[in-house]
């Protein structure tokens, strides 16, 4: 089970039964997990808002971001430089993929786009395998993983760093969308593509920027999750639950991604502890299926009306 939240989680055992402290411990453990899922979901939401399409290869983008960070680290750069430069490099990758692939498919039908995102995801996966093979590389945590204890609840500094960093990313993006010109231009494109162009917004540039942002966010997610799971080509599959988070929250808002991420993490932790480890994935993916059946637009999305 990859997402043990540092050594502090050992106490979330069955002995405590349904004591409040157990539940709180679970929630604390879920924060780290939830932050990762929220960031992956955020990457998806950014693309969806701008182009109303889902990037099915998002998991591979996280993996690619991890390898970018790894490369910079192995090249000898200090950690703080890696933290800053990796998302930028990831953003460049996203920008390039938009120019080379997604921009040319802007007029295509839904299935072409879905398959294209899967294709890009697969390609990234294969390139990573080709260059780095199937080895699992270690990535150092940012902060200490010494368990601390407050009121009987265990956690580590890393446990706080991850959700903290994620919140910082969310906060920064929120401010960006609300208070900068470019951010508002992106909102305009999300709401009314033709209208945005009429008032002079450069659609191509905004879309390219969106892909870059999404890739950058995925890189941050990668750097936050890497210390716990190691870096390998199969990383993308670990964060695939980010899709569930995005679906639960609705693909249309930052808040939705955040809430969705937390919710999925809590469901996963609870299932893992009180039912079984094997079952937790089935429950989480079952949640995705249920959302698609009952309310495809998620908790915070708007139901689309069909024009006849």
């Amino acid at each position, binding site marked *: 089970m990859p997402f043990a939240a540092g050594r502090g989680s050992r106490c979330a055992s069955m002995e405590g039964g349904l004591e409040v402290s157990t539940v709180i411990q679970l929630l604390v453990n879920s924060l780290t997990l939830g932050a990762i899922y929220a960031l992956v979901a955020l990457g998806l939401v950014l693309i969806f808002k701008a182009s109303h*399409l*889902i990037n*099915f290869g998002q998991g591979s983008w996280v993996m690619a971001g991890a390898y970018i960070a790894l490369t910079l680290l192995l090249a000898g750069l200090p950690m703080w430089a890696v933290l800053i430069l990796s998302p930028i490099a990831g953003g460049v990758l996203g920008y390039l993929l938009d120019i080379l*692939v997604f921009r*040319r*498919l802007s007029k*295509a039908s*839904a*299935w*072409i*786009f*879905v*398959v*294209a995102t*899967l*294709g*890009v995801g*697969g*390609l990234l996966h*294969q*390139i990573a395998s*080709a260059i780095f093979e199937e080895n699992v590389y270690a990535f150092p945590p940012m902060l200490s993983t010494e368990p601390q204890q407050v009121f009987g609840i265990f956690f580590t500094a890393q446990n706080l760093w991850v959700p903290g960093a994620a919140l910082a990313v969310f906060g920064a993006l929120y401010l960006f969308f609300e208070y900068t010109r470019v951010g508002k231009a992106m909102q305009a494109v999300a709401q009314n593509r033709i209208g945005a162009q009429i008032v002079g917004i450069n659609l191509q540039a905004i879309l390219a920027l969106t892909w870059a942002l999404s890739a950058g966010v995925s890189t941050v997610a990668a750097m936050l999750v890497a210390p716990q799971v190691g870096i390998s080509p199969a990383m993308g599959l670990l964060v*695939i639950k980010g*899709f*569930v988070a995005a*679906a639960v929250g609705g693909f249309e808002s930052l808040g939705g991604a955040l809430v969705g991420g937390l919710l999925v993490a809590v469901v996963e932790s609870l299932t893992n502890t009180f039912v079984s480890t*094997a079952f937790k*994935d*089935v429950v989480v*993916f*079952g949640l*995705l*299926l249920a959302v*698609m*059946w009952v309310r*495809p637009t998620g908790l915070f999305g708007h139901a689309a009306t069909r024009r*006849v």
Partner: protein
Amino acid sequence: MTTSTSSRRLAGAAVLAALILLPAALASFQLYFVTIILVYTIVAIGLNILMGYTGQISVANGAFMGLGAYTTALLMSLLGLNVLPALVGAMVLTAALGFLVGIPALRIRGHYLALATLAFQLIVETVIMNWTSLTGGPNGQKVPDATLGPWTLKDLPLYYFVLLVALLAFLFARNLLRSRFGRALIGIRDHEVAATVMGVDVTWHKTFAFALSSAYAGLAGGLFAITVAFLDPLAFTVWESVKHLIMVILGGLGTLVGPVIGATLIAAAPELLRGFREHSLLIYYALLLMLLLFMPGGVASGLERLLRAIVTRRHASIATAPEPLGTGSAPGAKAVLSALAPVARSDGKPLLEVSGVGVTFGGLAALSNVSFTVSPGEIKGLIGPNGAGKTSMFNVLTRVYQPTSGSVVFNGQELLQVKAHEIVKLGLSRTFQNVEMFGSMTVLENVLVGMHHSLQASLLSSGLALGSQQREEREAVEKATAILKFLDLEGLKDAMANQLPLGTQRRVELARALAAGPTLLLLDEPASGLTHSEADRLMADVRAIRDSGITVLLIEHDMRFVMGLCDSITVLDRGEVICIGTPDEARANPRVIEAYLGKENASHA
């Protein structure tokens, strides 16, 4: 087209002969390889029915193949079943699950549907990986030997068995896709609403397409299991689903030979790319992206386009020739039209009674308290300025919109309880304001969709191409051709609908609506976009249609058309009826003039 059909038959026979004789030329491991290719063609054929023909997306095909594989193996090892019932069992299970997975498809489309199938795929993967007691988990499981009569299915007997099954699978799919089911699926892909109006039960067909493609994947999975003789859960992950997608896209979506070509190329790729063995997957994905960017129609469609370029060059001259101004008096046509139509009431009561119908969207009342009648045998006009609610009225009549109040009685029957795809059976058929052609089908096929509801052939008889179904198809083609003749479209019957000029497309849509055998024909702005002479021709056609016993209700802006053709007129303005009468009465009515031209002009009437 006969030369093309017989040359295709010849090519098919040649390929089959080659496949039968192949084992003589191959070593044992090569034969195994070709067997795997055949298994994948079955997968691709099934997925093509779902994606290529019905236009639905699924990322769960790998899971269905895995389900088929494990079910077959387990039925054989745990229950001791013979391979044939085990395969059938696998197909039943996967079909049932495919049906369930298809249910979201009814409410969501495109990427949401892909997500739902992704969820299913991941669930199945997890279950297979973790239910170790049943599946062996990550270590996999050996598959017991399959025996059929005196033969053990390995090497040569296995090859011929798989070849036979693949051939049957191909023929069944081909027959089905050439029948009314295939046309219905393409209709759903091209224009769901138009397909519904022509009598296609979209819900049923979509879930059926899912179930069928899943059954094909399940069957292939079972064959895969006995061929490889070992189950590895990693063979059925989401990347396997992507591989299947690559196969159908590479080969060409929505074509009959596409899946065969695609499956062969992709399954053979590891051998063909011997030199790049390690990076074959990398090449797959690069290839996939190139295809999507530069040739989304795949190999088969490239070939198809080449063939058509040669064939349609002969038709091109007909399409651009000036329209002949006959009056469509082909003698057989009227008989055909009257024969197709359900009998209208002759008790003097109106054919259509609209009473107090209201439709509101949020705060906007598209229609409020609209009442009018249509008498049998008349040509009635429904006119009014833009936004008056005319098309909304048509949408109410064909059950696309649900009115918030009022009732509609047609031929003595309350219409508002009837499902949208069943309206056409009652005798109501329509054309659309924006021509809703099934662009990827030929003119003849478009007209045949109009007859969808009157054809009886079942799934099974269509798939097996039974004599009764073939006969029914021939008769349908005859009737459809007669209707095309009536509208002077016979020469274009094999032309692709999306390559025709607008005026011609409108006539094809009219032919399609007539093929549905209506008692009441609804025409939504049929003259829009037509030249003067085309509009004259249309007037003559509508008169001929009425003379053959069909009542007509039409929406039009072209006043010359309306005045010259209609027996009576209902005028709508802003969702309300403002005048009912003869064309002359409407023309003189001050409220009507005001609606069109403004208040000042009304006083000058």
